[in-house]
């Protein structure tokens, strides 16, 4: 089929699907390099509006396009109506920039941001006409490489990828691109990748450990200024500057808290310059200062003040703040237009916060709630988890009590009653490379009983309770710490119709149950599986930099209900992440 005919047929199909703008490309700041010798397809395996907001792919997009002979083109997972129409019409998956078939790319790089996108990985490969299994691919197929945080456990997707890139792309991914540019032979390309310390090639087995790439120039290199401006359907339509990477608070449930160590900060003047430049070239009216905990960023005040001085009415958002009065005041100062604020105590009792290493007190939480209402916020969201290790009835009751306490504070501070409290509780899912990686997820029945108790016990007047879908949480738990044997299950579930598992209206639990049953197990059995401390873990060959001994020690500390300090202020805890130039780099 000629390119012209493909384009005419795609346009005909777009007349019939929902939100056709997902597929047209042509957005402001899109880069087109028609003469480039090497085509790299960058894929976020979810809908356009989710993928286009991903900062990591924006960084990678610039990184590839900065190379003179390479072109990056984007691809997202087509929504089922589009996918079905493409199959019906025999149309291949295409990139947004040139509408070229993805299969023509030299490299297809798929970011794995969450386990619930795994079935979409197969959907993307199938629509592209690329054999699902790496072993079945030949010379006409692109090298299919995975990256992103979920590549920290490559096992369940191992047969579907030629390679996994482990870690941060800046700098290190240039070696991957150079290897692809240097060779045209598929097997030679894979050999070059297999020799890279940050790459795992499943076909070569686990012959050596794979190190996580850590970008040491974070505070020196500048942030991308020119980013693709999505059409308005994107989940985040705002400029953003990553002010800090990594977090050493040490919350024991948090994958990112291990995976992005150590802490690296960007100086305020760079943040201001990058933010203003990005606003100018995107036309956004909102700027987000992003990180895992922006209120921990040393230069947060000078950065806010510097931006506000230049653009006083700008809508400035600070996501992921700690529960403390300082951050609440900061957030209020940054954005006078916002009426809602989210605080994340994660757990409602001191005991549980010691178990998970969340070093805040009840007093700090209550002060933060009071500060939020005094600062004029009328909607307060409190975020918790249930099903954490060694959780008792007291912890669940504590969430109910804290919701009620927040309402009491609201009534005292805002006697006009114009406020609401939103209590949100998600289900704890143990993740690889965390101190809780050996723990099983709590049984579905237990979680369901806790959710039912919270629904019964939480007053409804001025308090809204939202609880995460147990079905998707259990699947996430079954996939997060899965081994290679789960690859067959993922393929079977996809063949039975699973796709877009993170979208509740699309979730096909029956397909997953059937696929796990065919493998002689179940979602719940895999999700609740506990590893022994001497067990070999499916991701043991992937080295995050944080030692397994440290994680094990932290696991034992959690059993002793003892929190560990933050190495930025409380001394080194010897986690293993720092060596040579890799170390915490705070701006002062």
């Amino acid at each position, binding site marked *: 089929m000629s390119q012209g005919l493909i384009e005419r047929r795609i*346009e005909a199909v*777009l*007349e019939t699907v929902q*939100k*056709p*703008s997902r*597929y*047209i*490309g*042509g*957005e*402001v700041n899109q880069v087109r390099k028609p003469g480039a010798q090497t085509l790299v397809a960058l894929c976020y395996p979810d809908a356009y509006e989710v993928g286009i907001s991903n900062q990591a792919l924006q960084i990678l997009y610039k990184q590839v396009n900065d190379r003179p002979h390479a072109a990056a083109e984007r691809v997202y997972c087509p929504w089922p109506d589009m996918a079905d129409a493409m199959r019906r019409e025999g149309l291949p998956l295409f990139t947004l920039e040139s509408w070229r078939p993805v299969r023509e790319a030299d490299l297809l790089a798929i970011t794995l941001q969450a386990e619930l996108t795994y079935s979409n990985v197969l959907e993307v490969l199938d629509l592209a006409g690329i054999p699902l299994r790496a072993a079945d691919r030949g010379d006409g197929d692109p090298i299919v490489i995975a990256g992103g945080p979920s590549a920290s456990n490559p096992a369940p997707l191992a047969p579907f990828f030629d390679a996994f890139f482990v870690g941060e792309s800046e700098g290190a991914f240039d070696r991957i691109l150079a290897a692809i540019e240097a060779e045209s032979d598929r097997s030679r390309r894979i050999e070059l990748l297999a020799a890279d310390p940050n790459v795992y090639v499943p076909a070569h087995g686990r012959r050596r450990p794979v190190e996580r790439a850590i970008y040491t120039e974070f505070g020196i290199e500048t942030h991308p200024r020119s980013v693709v*401006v999505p*059409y*308005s*359907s994107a989940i985040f*339509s705002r400029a953003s500057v990553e002010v800090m990477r990594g977090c050493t608070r040490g919350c024991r449930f948090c994958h990112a808290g291990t995976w992005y160590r150590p802490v690296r900060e960007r100086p305020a003047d760079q943040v201001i310059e990058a933010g203003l430049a990005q606003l*100018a*070239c*995107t*036309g*956004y*009216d909102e700027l987000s200062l992003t990180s895992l905990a922006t209120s921990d960023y040393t230069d947060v005040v000078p950065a806010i003040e510097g931006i506000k001085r230049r653009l006083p009415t700008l809508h400035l958002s600070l996501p992921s703040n700690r529960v403390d009065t300082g951050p609440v005041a900061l957030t209020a100062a940054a954005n006078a*237009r916002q009426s809602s604020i989210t605080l994340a105590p994660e757990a409602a009792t001191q005991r549980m916060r010691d178990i998970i290493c969340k070093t805040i007190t009840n007093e700090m939480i209550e002060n933060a709630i009071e500060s939020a209402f005094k600062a004029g916020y009328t909607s307060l969201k409190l975020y918790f988890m249930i099903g954490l290790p060694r959780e008792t009835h007291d912890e669940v009751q504590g969430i109910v009590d804290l919701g009620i306490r927040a309402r009491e504070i609201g009534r005292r501070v805002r006697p006009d009653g114009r406020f609401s409290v939103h209590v949100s509780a998600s289900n704890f899912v143990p993740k690889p490379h965390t101190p809780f990686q050996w723990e099983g997820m709590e049984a579905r029945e237990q979680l369901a009983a806790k959710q039912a108790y919270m629904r019964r016990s939480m007053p409804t007047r001025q308090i809204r309770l939202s609880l995460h879908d147990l079905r998707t949480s259990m699947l996430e738990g079954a996939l997060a710490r899965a081994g290679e044997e789960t690859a067959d299950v993922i393929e079977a579930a996809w063949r039975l119709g699973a796709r877009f598992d993170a979208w509740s209206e699309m979730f096909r639990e029956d397909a997953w149950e059937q696929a796990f049953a065919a493998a002689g197990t179940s979602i719940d059995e895999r999700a609740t599986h506990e590893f022994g401390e001497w067990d070999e873990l499916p991701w043991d060959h992937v080295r995050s930099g944080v030692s397994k001994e440290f994680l094990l020690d932290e696991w034992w500390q959690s059993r002793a209900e003892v929190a560990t300090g933050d190495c930025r202020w409380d001394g080194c805890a010897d986690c293993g992440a720092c060596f040579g130039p890799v170390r915490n780099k705070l701006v002062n």
Partner: protein
Amino acid sequence: MTYRITFAVTGRARFLSHLETVDTLLSALRRAGYDIALSQGMKPRPVISLAMPRAVGVESEGDLADVQLVADPEPAVLAGELAARLPEGMRVVAVERRAPGRRAAARVRRVEYRVDVADDVDWEAALAAFETASEAVAVRTAPGKPDRRVDVKQFCHSIEYEPGRFALDLELTEGGTARPEEVIHAVAATIGATATIERLVRTAITLAAEPVGVET
């Protein structure tokens, strides 16, 4: 200062929704360095209004947007700066200053379309039959609602045909209007044929006269 921007949406940009079109215009203006005036109230919004939403998939050559800016640039300057910042498929046709008055959306009287059709229908005969028919009914269906029968002929100000292409001028009245594809299908139906529409372009939007003058 309020400006009326006449703009075209063609090619793949026709797949943008109405809201996406509005946001694209706003972000292009911001990239050009213009602050957009905000409405009053608890949740201020940029002051912008399009004369008529464009259906997804329909191209346009003369859509109208009224937008209020904080600054007061020359229309030609604004046109140039905006044109340089619109994405592929969106183009500035004209920019003029507007004195405060009724929103364009409240004053749309007629809408013109160009419709390319496949030549598998005897269109000359169909149009002749359509013109002599007392009515031409389109049936509108909506989920959960009873079907509605609408005589689309009453909204046709004029229909012109040249081989492969119709030019429709449709009225917008208090009683509603007709969609261009409804009219084309109704024309074909008069001789028992089925139309295949190959391309649909909204060519112009005509507004009712306004007592307040236009500053240029």
